[in-house]
């Protein structure tokens, strides 16, 4: 059985109805959607039972009323993308650095550019924006418009 189908079946078996969406778009890609409260449990399961060793990156997208966070993991050659949504009015999420220390810089980046509050992060400083950047202005949100200057 191809690896991505095996991973899909195991996730369905372990979490059942608590996962709202599970699909395989092509070989070696799995997309899963969970509520924010289930994120840490699924990541621990991926690490202990499905041989996950590596986080590739964390993507965050502004989809209007919510901010969608995607964690991209590597499980035995398959890229598992774990998706969750938090409301834009209160974008708070727990850190995953106790389970995966390698995620430390990616969480700083989404905190900086999209205003996601990562609770419990060991080092919540800015990553890419300068120190004198105004608080509360998040460049990757759709409200932020880029000014075009003709040279």
């Amino acid at each position, binding site marked *: 059985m191809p690896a991505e189908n095996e991973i899909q079946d195991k996730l369905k078996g372990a979490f059942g109805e608590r996962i709202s969406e599970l699909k395989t778009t092509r070989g070696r890609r799995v997309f899963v959607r969970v509520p924010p409260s289930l994120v840490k449990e699924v990541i621990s399961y991926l690490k202990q039972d499905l041989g996950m060793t590596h986080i590739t990156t964390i993507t965050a997208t502004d989809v209007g009323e919510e901010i969608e966070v995607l964690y*991209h993991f590597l499980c035995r050659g398959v*890229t598992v993308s774990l998706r969750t949504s938090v409301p834009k009015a209160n974008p708070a999420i727990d850190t995953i650095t106790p389970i995966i220390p390698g995620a430390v810089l990616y969480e700083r980046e989404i905190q900086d550019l999209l205003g996601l509050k990562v609770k419990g992060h060991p080092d919540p400083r800015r990553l890419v924006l300068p120190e004198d950047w105004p608080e509360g202005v998040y*460049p990757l949100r759709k409200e932020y418009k880029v000014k075009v200057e003709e040279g």
Partner: protein
Amino acid sequence: MSVSIPIGPQHPALKEPVNLTVTLDGEKIVDIDMRLGYNHRGIEKGSESRNYIQNIYLTERICGICNVAHTTTFCQGVEELLGLEVPKRGLFIRTLLCELNRIHSHLLWLGVAGHEIGFDTLFMYSWRDREIVMDLIEIVSGNRVNIAINAIGGVRRDVSDDMRAQILQGISQLEARSQYYLDVASTEVTFLRRTEGVGKLPKEKAIELCAVGPFARASGVEYDVRKDDPFAAYPYLDFKVITSDRCDVLGTAIVRALEIVESCKMCRQIIEELPAGEIKAKAPRKVPPGEVVSKTEAPRGELIHYIRSNGTDRPERLKVRAPTLANIPSVLYSLRGGYIADIPIVFAAIDPCMACMDRVILLDTDHGKTKRVMTWEELRQHGMEWYADRKG
């Protein structure tokens, strides 16, 4: 008594700015911290206001050395969203340029590593051999850097028969030279003294901190996207994943030299097995809604593009994670416990596509007085003299 030194952002040679703050106890590094963001250009935001064709050229300029990897990742992501199949000849030419780019990047790294330890002869020789690769790339694509060979649906230029003969000749020259660099890396005393046992990163730490690329493979982590998640023409090619158990900077040099040899073999295989046919499939301008995760192996490690489309001719979201960002926690770990003289070479070992430092200000934390300002040149000199004194 520990002293805290900020190593500040600007330097006029080769690389990009970064800021390090080093806490020292005598000559040993107790702690090290880094500030990034000096080269942040807002490319992810900029890609949302350009159409997919303009975005190929924008992603190419994320990095001058890995430019083929960025366009390959982007184009293959959009092709997956469109459900477009690239003709086999196009895939082979794309892979040929990925591998030539890899040889170029590793030769460049050898020169930079030689320069950081003060071995300028190695720098000059490896960069002169890099000219062979640059000429081959120019013959195929029309440009030496930012080669723009990829288009959505395939490649833009074809490889003619006399180009094939010239490439094979260039590859033979490179194979002989790369064998020579392998000997230098493993036996040349000047090189060994500065790189052996320096910047140690054990295998468990490399996995825990999610390191990628030749830097992780030098610590024994066997992860190469070309083997684990093949893309382009890699399923049809026969090659080995090079790892080393050394876990130090010398291991990264040996892994890269062996990878040049492996890439030369792959280029030869591609030229000999190049199938006939079209090089590009016609691609529509509007991309149906969807999302894709596209991964490739850039010369520095695993590169990922996440693209989300919304039915128009502009992307909804483009997320890029370049391989150097993944290696930063690991390099900061490997520098702790080392000497300040090792900072240039250990930093160069991850082949930073975003690093450069100048202006070291020595602050005495007890008295709070600024003592001395050092430039990057002086830091390099300090490293060379320190090792020379230590020997005899």
